[in-house]
């Protein structure tokens, strides 16, 4: 293999790829070729760097230069200035959002400083379509180690000792799950990777599969060895075409090397992996529904027990793990349980990947040790709230989770603390909200999602959530009463207790947590018929401050329904019976004379 002095890494995650990172890659390659540098500079496509906010990303190694928002036509200047002359291209460098100073070295970016990347260790570092690069990073060494040096029981013990808990949402101990599956005797068992990532705003599983697919394949084979399964299935939603493409390449390459297939590492252990596509139903992330969907049945959950570990796919013992859970397994085996269980908190070990979204400066994917506080994540890594607004709440755990507020900011995050605070870990979506978000509308948004995605099998989820949604809708329209708030709470509790699967049981969480933490906002909607955040259209009125209005007529001219009247150079008025509350007048007014109240 030839030795390159410099490596240009181009982000090939879905986010950056939709902003033309393919064209950037080919332009860079052409440019390098044209300048005769092909034997000195290597240009590769990697997985996601996590800094999706400023994509597409191009990183230059060895000096760790981090270029953001690169365009295909920038390839020339990067090669001519940086690669040939050694001068960083200032205008493409990442800038500190506060000081506006260019940051030349990614090591100095607040976004990366606090992170500990275990699951994402290879994302944005290796070429996911090249198994050799994975092997160079000790890839498949863990599989080799378990097959040649460990018994299945030792493997399970190691995972148990590591204290790892499933990253799919509920936090069930991984080692225990494996142990149960291994103890159930059967002629055939299955290892299933749950890649049906359905939470709105969560994309860590996709990024791992796109950036480091082999880590998941290797972990599945390790699991197969531990529980005595010879077949693996990855259930992935068809909405993830790039992840599917890279998985297919990875599976082919692993088979070619004999790392999947018969007699792996010359032993009598055989294991192979197939893909199963899902149609993107949220409920299919629930393991029993997932298994039914793979069997060709309707994606509906069934009551547990029996757990999949006893009777899963085709009635055989089946172990279902989430992508993120699996991606950490090879490292745990290589570095040992004692290394892993030193990271994190007492009951939640290791790291967790979070997808930051919403009103935050650095939207993207991050990985931090368990026990990091929300404040560190939102304000240090996430760069704080957009446009200097005030933090109001953060929603964790997607539609199954809850909203946490200011007072929770210093809580160390782990499975148990989040539940205690009225939310949950979920898959790790984190939607940050500022003062402009109406919490009733936020609860309504998640309920709308749950109603849409409910499989309809059990009445509490099918009918109950629909009623919850209707109540919330009434409240945001100003038609709610105080009794409705009690009704909301009672019905939520009933759904929680009586729904069939985990998704139904957790679906009222957004309502309950907003009721707990933002009761005053609900009361304002119901009693004063006002939306404090000014988001609920039916509850707000646009109003012209007479002292500020100069009578320029701009608002009257922009109004699409002619609701504003007034003579030139005289104070205007809004006719509230006609106004549709579109806000066009407020945007147009140059004198801050129009307010919402």
């Amino acid at each position, binding site marked *: *293999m*030839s*030795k*390159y*002095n*410099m*490596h240009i*890494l181009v982000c090939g995650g879905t986010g950056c790829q939709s902003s033309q990172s393919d064209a950037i890659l080919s332009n860079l390659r052409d440019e390098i070729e044209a300048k005769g540098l092909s034997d000195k500079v290597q240009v590769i496509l990697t997985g996601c760097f996590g800094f999706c906010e400023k994509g597409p990303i191009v990183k230059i*190694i*060895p*000096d*760790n230069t981090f270029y953001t928002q690169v365009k295909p036509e920038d390839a020339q200047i990067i090669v001519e200035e940086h690669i*040939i*002359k*050694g*001068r*960083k291209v200032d205008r493409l460098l990442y800038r500190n959002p506060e000081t506006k*100073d*260019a*940051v*030349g*070295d990614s090591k*100095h970016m607040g976004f990366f400083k606090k992170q500990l990347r275990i699951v994402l260790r290879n994302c944005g*570092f*290796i070429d996911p379509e090249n198994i*050799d*690069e994975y*092997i*160079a*990073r*000790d890839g*498949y*060494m863990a599989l*080799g*180690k378990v*097959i*040649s*040096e460990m018994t299945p029981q030792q493997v399970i013990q190691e995972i148990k000792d590591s204290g790892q808990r499933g990253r799919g949402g509920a936090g069930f101990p991984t080692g225990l799950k494996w142990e149960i599956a291994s103890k159930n005797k059967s002629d055939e068992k299955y290892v299933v990777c749950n890649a049906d990532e359905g939470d709105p705003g969560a994309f860590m599983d996709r990024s791992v599969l796109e950036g480091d697919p082999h880590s998941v394949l290797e972990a599945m084979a390790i699991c197969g060895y531990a529980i005595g399964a010879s077949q693996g299935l990855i259930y992935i939603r068809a909405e993830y075409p790039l992840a599917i493409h890279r998985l297919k390449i990875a599976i082919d390459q692993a088979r*070619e*090397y*004999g*790392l999947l297939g018969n007699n792996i*590492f*010359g032993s009598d252990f055989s294991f192979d992996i197939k893909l199963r596509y899902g149609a993107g139903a949220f409920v299919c992330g629930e393991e029993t529904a997932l298994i039914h969907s793979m069997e060709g049945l309707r994606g509906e959950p069934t009551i547990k027990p029996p757990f999949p570990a006893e009777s899963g796919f085709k009635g055989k013992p089946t172990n279902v793990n989430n992508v993120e859970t699996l991606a950490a397994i090879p490292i745990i085996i290589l570095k040992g349980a004692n290394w892993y269980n030193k990271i994190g908190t007492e009951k939640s070990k290791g790291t967790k990947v979070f997808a930051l979204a919403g009103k935050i400066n650095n939207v993207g994917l991050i990985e931090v040790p368990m026990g990091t506080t929300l404040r560190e994540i939102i304000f240090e890594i996430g760069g704080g709230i957009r446009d200097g607004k005030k933090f109001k709440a953060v929603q964790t755990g997607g539609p199954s989770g809850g909203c946490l507020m200011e007072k929770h900011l210093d809580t160390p995050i782990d499975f148990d603390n989040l539940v205690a605070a009225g939310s949950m870990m979920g898959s790790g979506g984190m939607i940050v909200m500022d003062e402009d978000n109406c919490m009733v509308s936020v609860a309504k948004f998640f309920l709308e999602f749950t109603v849409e995605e409910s499989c309809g099998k059990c009445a509490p989820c099918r009918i109950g959530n629909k009623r919850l949604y209707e109540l919330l809708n009434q409240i945001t329209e100003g038609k709610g009463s105080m009794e409705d708030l009690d009704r909301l709470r009672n019905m939520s509790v009933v759904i929680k207790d009586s729904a069939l699967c985990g998704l139904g049981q957790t679906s009222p969480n957004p309502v309950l947590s907003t009721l707990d933490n933002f009761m005053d906002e609900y009361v304002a909607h119901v009693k004063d018929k006002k939306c404090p955040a000014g988001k609920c259209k039916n509850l707000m009125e646009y109003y012209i401050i007479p002292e500020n209005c100069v009578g320029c007529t701009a608002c009257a001219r922009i109004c699409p329904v002619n609701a504003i009247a007034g003579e030139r150079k005289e104070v205007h008025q809004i006719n509230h019976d006609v106004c549709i509350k579109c806000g066009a007048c407020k945007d147009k007014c140059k004198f801050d004379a129009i307010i919402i109240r």
Partner: protein
Amino acid sequence: MSQIKSLADLKKKREEIKTGLDVRIKSIDPENHVQVKVAMATCGIASGAKPIMEFFVEQLDRRNIPGVVTQTGCMGYCFAEPTVEIKLPGKDPVVFGYVDLKKADLIIEKYIKEGELIDGIIPVNYETIDSKE
């Protein structure tokens, strides 16, 4: 592609490939490696920085010194080109001026290997954004 039939096979394969990713792996913690920065602006190249850079790349590898060789722009010492900045782990960077092949060899043998200072050092008289942080 040949099949991997044992852990030893995999280890062998890894060693074969690893050098290809060397530069990337070192860049994770550049502080722990010898960093050589050759000034390669117009003035540097005109004074012969290119063969110096190639010499460092080749010789560090040959003499088994784990190092990262990069190029930088003009540092303003155009009078002393070619200039080379060496940053040893845990030490402040040192800039050498008037580097030719003979001096480059001396830098590797004396400074990089032994930590012994040699003639031709240009005193640091600037601050960078990095050092201000």
